[in-house]
């Protein structure tokens, strides 16, 4: 069977890149959360060390991860994400909703 070909929307290459960056960020977030929580938190509570009053595992896996990943999201969005038009091209041709 012969496949009909059509030109793929060029914006999708960009959106795929953006999606991939978010998936990588998510995986990094899960690993960070897991490694610090159970790497530092598995010992008995008597042996815990404390940072700013919090048990170290909690400080790294909950507080630092919040700050760190907020900053990373900001960096990734500024670097990877592009300001692309969302309207369909037909609208623009018609002089409709395009900018």
């Amino acid at each position, binding site marked *: 069977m012969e496949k009909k070909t*059509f030109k793929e929307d060029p914006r999708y290459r960009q959106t795929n890149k953006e999606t991939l960056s978010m998936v990588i960020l998510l995986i990094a977030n899960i690993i960070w959360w897991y490694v610090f929580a159970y790497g530092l938190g598995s010992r008995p509570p008597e042996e815990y060390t404390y940072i700013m009053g919090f048990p170290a595992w909690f400080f790294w896996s909950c*507080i630092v991860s919040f700050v760190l990943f907020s900053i990373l999201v900001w960096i990734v969005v500024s670097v990877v994400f592009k300001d692309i038009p969302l309207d369909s091209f037909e609208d623009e041709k018609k002089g409709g909703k395009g900018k």
Partner: protein
Amino acid sequence: MNLSSSYLIQLWIPLGLYLLIMLYIGFYSNRVVSTVSKRNFLGEYFLGNRNFGGYVLAMTLVATYVSASSFLGGPGTAYSQGLGWVLLAMTQLPTAYITLGILGKRFAIVSRKVNAVTIIDVIRERYDNNPLVVWIASMGAIIFLIVAVVGQFVGGAKLFQTITGLPYIWGLILFGSIVLIYTTVGGFRAVVLTDAVQGTIMVFGTVVILIATIMAGGGISNIMHTLKTINPDLLTPYGVDNFIAVPWISSYWVLVCIGILGLPQNAIRAMAYKDSKSMHRAIIIGTVVSGVLMLGLHLTGVMARAIVTEIPQGLTTDNVMPLLAMRLFPAWFAGIFLAAPLAAIMSTVDSQLILISSTIVKDLYLNYINPKVNDDQRKLTSTSMIITALLGLIAILASIKPPSLIIWINLYAFGGLEATFFWMLILGLYWKRANAAGAIASMITGIVSFIVISRVWPRPFGTHPIVLTLILGLIAFLIATYATKPPKEETIEKFWGV
């Protein structure tokens, strides 16, 4: 609780003011609806004309999924389980960046291509106008969401009862009718704008109560020391007596983080923003806001253990936050803080109500029952508003004394929605081969297996049933898709072509 009447009056002033502002936003949005509705009523009433900027988008996204449980039940459990429960809550940090980052732009582009107003519009076009796909998805959304609305109404009325002493039924009527009025008259725009105000109140309330709690407990070190004397388990990631096992907590990454992509009330927000820039800003703001709320509220719940040492008789740990607010703040300020959990509930209910209404009106009534109404904007307006109002009334009536069927379904509402929509949305957007047979197979397998697994095998391999459910749903999707023909060429071209 026994409260003096002067205390109640001071408490009521900010609460009443808050409720009036919500009504005002409803009527303000109604003016926009009536000016726009001559041209494009459905697009305005159910999607606010895709006109929202970054801050509003971030707030509506976060406020919609932050519900009663993040303000009452969640901190209550943190109170009894300690820091491990905060660790669990932190699995929700990525919600904003994955919802908008993964669904966001693709969904916005596609929905403009096919001129979609609802999630099911996109699904219908993507799966070759297959009526079975539309009906199963719509019924799934309607049933699970109505039940979820009832659950939130009950929570809201109970909260009203606890904090103001108003009898349950009056709390329900007052609270329910305000949500109902602003949602009905103002549509999606009112829902989103009230969400923005409600989200702001939630963030403000959370930061203030966290700081006040740390100060009242004499600093973090002091509080942690007190917790250690109460029970050293409170400081571990495992909870008291290993309550929070590792496979169980890990499956929350699926239930409340990745699975969120399958909640239609969240996904619809990925269609509603103005331009790329607004979405980029919303990803950043939304991540920070959800982090502040999740970390702040649950950590406050944990530390409350050192301050509210005993829960008064007749109350449960769900009341920890209201008790704490009344302990820490003067009445008028407690009133502001208590508006926050109400805001959390209202911002969840309104989004669910408008989504059910859009499913009934746009996806079922106009598609299959009475397509002629499409040309009559006035009739569309009245039909949509009447259906929204009726739905709300039914939900309020059902909340007076919730039938046991509703309580039963409510257990499955959250996961049920994810099981219905998750693969259909993700694969529909990113996989050309995905077809209607696959969507139907994954929805049916998902819903049935979620309910069955939850009942007969509540912790498969130590995890939450949603994990196995989504795996089975994916397998069903793949088998059914490969066993049947690919979707129509036109569909693929419409979605992927220029």
